[in-house]
């Protein structure tokens, strides 16, 4: 990213101090887009920054992630891979580890993070095209004293409909699959997956993390 576009970006964000300029530019140069919202909690929502000019300049994989509880979006860039899981960072170095298909298996820096997840059943069901079935999913979280608390869910996978979704980078033909999970005590959540008909992986998804973090909406803007 050039210096000009960086300044342009910063002007849009309304950052006037030299300090912010320096911080913003450094971050952006090393990590396109991901750096912009990383200027702190008061930084702007990434969705307001994704102009066509900006989007056209980024040619590496990145995600737009919206935290539903706060309705705040940041962009994540790809940082490392331990196949088949890729780890993505935003400008705050919050990280998401996501399977190749698109399921979150770990978060870091969101608060009460997902430590590990057993999503093999869900993944298999999605790969089979979302035929109606019941799978088992396990989330491991830490309690307030850092002991592991594991919770198993019975999850109903249900194919919904072919759906065209429009993201800032275009319109994609997807197939919507829903997963309704409940644990033994009746705590429940619902995940949604928009499987890209071309690539077979998730173009968009809504995935629940923990009671405190809530649900994240992920959009794959660029593969």
């Amino acid at each position, binding site marked *: 990213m050039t210096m000009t576009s960086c300044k342009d970006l910063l002007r849009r964000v309304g950052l006037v101090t030299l300090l912010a300029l320096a911080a913003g530019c450094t971050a952006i140069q090393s990590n396109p887009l991901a750096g912009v919202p990383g200027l702190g909690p008061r930084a702007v929502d990434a969705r307001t920054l994704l102009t066509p000019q900006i989007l056209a300049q980024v040619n590496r994989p990145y995600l737009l992630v919206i935290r539903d509880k706060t309705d705040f979006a940041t962009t994540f860039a790809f*940082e*490392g*891979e*331990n*196949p088949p*899981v890729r*780890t993505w*960072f935003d400008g*705050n*170095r*919050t*990280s998401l*580890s996501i399977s190749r298909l698109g399921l979150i*298996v*770990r*978060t*870091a*820096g*969101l*608060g*009460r*993070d997902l*430590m*590990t*997840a*057993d999503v*093999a059943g869900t993944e298999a069901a999605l790969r089979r095209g979302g035929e109606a079935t019941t799978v*088992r999913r*396990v*989330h*491991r*979280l*830490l*309690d*307030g*004293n*850092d*002991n*592991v*608390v*594991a*919770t*198993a*869910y019975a999850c109903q996978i249900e194919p919904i409909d072919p759906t065209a979704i429009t993201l800032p980078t275009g319109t994609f033909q997807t197939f919507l699959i829903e997963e309704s999970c409940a*644990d*033994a*005590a009746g*705590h429940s959540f619902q995940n949604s997956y928009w499987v890209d008909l071309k690539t077979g992986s998730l173009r968009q998804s809504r995935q629940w993390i*923990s*009671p*405190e*973090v809530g649900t994240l909406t992920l959009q794959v803007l660029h593969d």
Partner: protein
Amino acid sequence: MLQSRHAFRSRVSRPVMRRAAAALALLCWPLPPTATAQSLAELAGLANRPTLTFSGSPGIVDMPSAFMSPDGDLSFSASYFAGITRTSINFQIAPRLSGSFRYTAFDNYFPNRDSNGVTTYYDRSFDLRYQILTEGRIRPALTVGLIDFAGTGRLSSEYLVASKTLGAGVTVTGGLGFGRLGTRNGFENPLTGLDDRFATRPGNVAGDRTGRANFNSLFRGDAALFGGVTWQATPKLTLLAEYSSDDYADEVRRGLLDDGTPYNFGASYKVTPTLDLGAYALRGQDFGVRLSYTINPAVPPRDNGIGPGPAPIRVRGAAALPAFPQTPDAGAALQSQLQADLAADGLVLEAFDLTATAVRVRIRNTDYNRAAQAVGRTARHLTRLMPAPVETFVIELSERGLPTSATTLRRSLLEAAEFDPFALERTYQAARVGGPADIGPASPFIQPSPLGFDISGYFNRSFFDPRKPLLFDAGVAVDVAYEPRPGIIASFGLQQPLVSNRDATDRVSNSVLPKVRSETDNYYQSKDLRLPYATLAYYFRPGSTTYGRVTAGLLEQAYAGASAELLWKPDGSRLAYGVEVNAVRQRQPGTLADLGTGVYDTQTVTGHVSAYYDFSGDWLAQLDVGRYLAGDNGATLTLSRDFDNGVQVGAFATLTDTSFDDFGEGAFDKGIFISLPTSYLTGRPSRGARNLVIRPVLRDGGARVFVRDRLYPLVRDSDAQAVNDSWGRFLR
């Protein structure tokens, strides 16, 4: 998966863990139905918090109930009615035991005492409550309580109370009170049948009885009945009504209150999960309010775990890695790259030793209050930089240059297990955690950035001066440390007071002992720049289970001299021993400029033998036996609830051969302390903590020198036990 929930707390040996692994995997399928995804607040049972009384402990308006707060709950309350202000701290010490400390101010209690202008009477009191029976489906909860059993006794009362939760959010409570709680419509003590002595309650003994338990008046004198009803009308609002057995006779006699009815009504409103407001109509004539702030150690007030995530593990084969350095220059370049990467995560590299297949690093952890998190982050950086043939990582943690633990990890396991659903269990079982093989100073050591510099605000306070309940001075503090090599530290601090009310008291020590602490106010009254400490310290490890420290210089605001300490803490043992000897002279109160004439002539030698015991279930006990500053001999017992996340609430008491009369107000030195880690409060990594020590006015008996960086807390934060116990954070 209850097994894994407790895995990191268990002290079973690793071979046993490994054998258990297979069984564990079987047990995990399917999960027992008890495992539920609960929020931290639900896990801690915060929805069942009982309403708090005027006095800050569970109850109705002014009367106690038999309910207990969720385990670990810590409440700070302030309440006011008719000129009586109560400030209290209530701590749920254990699921069935709670304690309260309260400071009550009675306005106009001494209307004619003009000599020093203080007409308010301040009273400290301490309560304990024990739940004899927990609530059952039909059985009510039953609790016995002692109020103000160790103070002036002005509020002293005892009670036995039963409470039951009915349907629709209603609870009913009925109890039998003694002492103050037996003053309205009192009747002959039912225990008189056992012994006639129960019929009368000894009055307050003349003279200063502060700090002494009034065991001979417990449950004596007239008894009376009290009771009440609460109704949780909405999730946030609870309505309260009670019949009180406290007639406030003393206050009425003094004209502070008028006679009133026994009926109190009120409402308690949860503004937020932590903040709770109460409004009350009391005795048919007064209006009262209460504000409570309640936290639970298991539920951080903010999201816990905010901040940069850890660097991803780099898998050999999938990513390019540096080649094995063939020249010293290449080795140095690799080392400085590692140093830079670690520094970004708040980790300081003290030693780096690379062989063909193994690497050993010594790490100073400046950011993470859980040891395993520092180990895990270091391991991740090693996977990103170490040449591919390097398979074994040995990660030592160090404190003040002392290696305290060594964790040995296999790189291929880290690569394979990173995203395994059982990643935490697998890494825990495979890691070897123990004492460091090489206990000497890091050799060759990496030059730490030798000059450390910190500017912060400071707030010195002392409580309960009879003239002014809070004396304080606050301002700017500068701390400078110079560390030419790990373990040798020269440091000093400066404090510039900006705000102070230290001159609000003119109290002169009336102590009959050498005035070793009772004139402590003198050290804080000047508003000039002062030098609270300036020391040279050396930390060393004489043996594989021992740690040593020598500190010399201006040890603290009031003492200068030398201090030496040895700690024996075997790996895997709950018991540790320490010995400390201090040869000190008292510093003269004064400022930085007065250093030349700084100390008094008399030298005192104090010393202690200490035993530390780390109970399971978050308890820590410390017993120090030895000689104190005034030449008195005795022992200090410190007992604290230590939560895994670093939250600490405890109490200490010192008894020496100084008589209670010679000691003066309070009878003996004692206090309570609360330590809240910054990481708990903010959710972000930090090794700092906010500490609050509440103790009566300092006297001269049972006094000790405050030496910075005593060994036990340092070692306990990062030794093998600490790494094992915090393994849940290994992946964070």
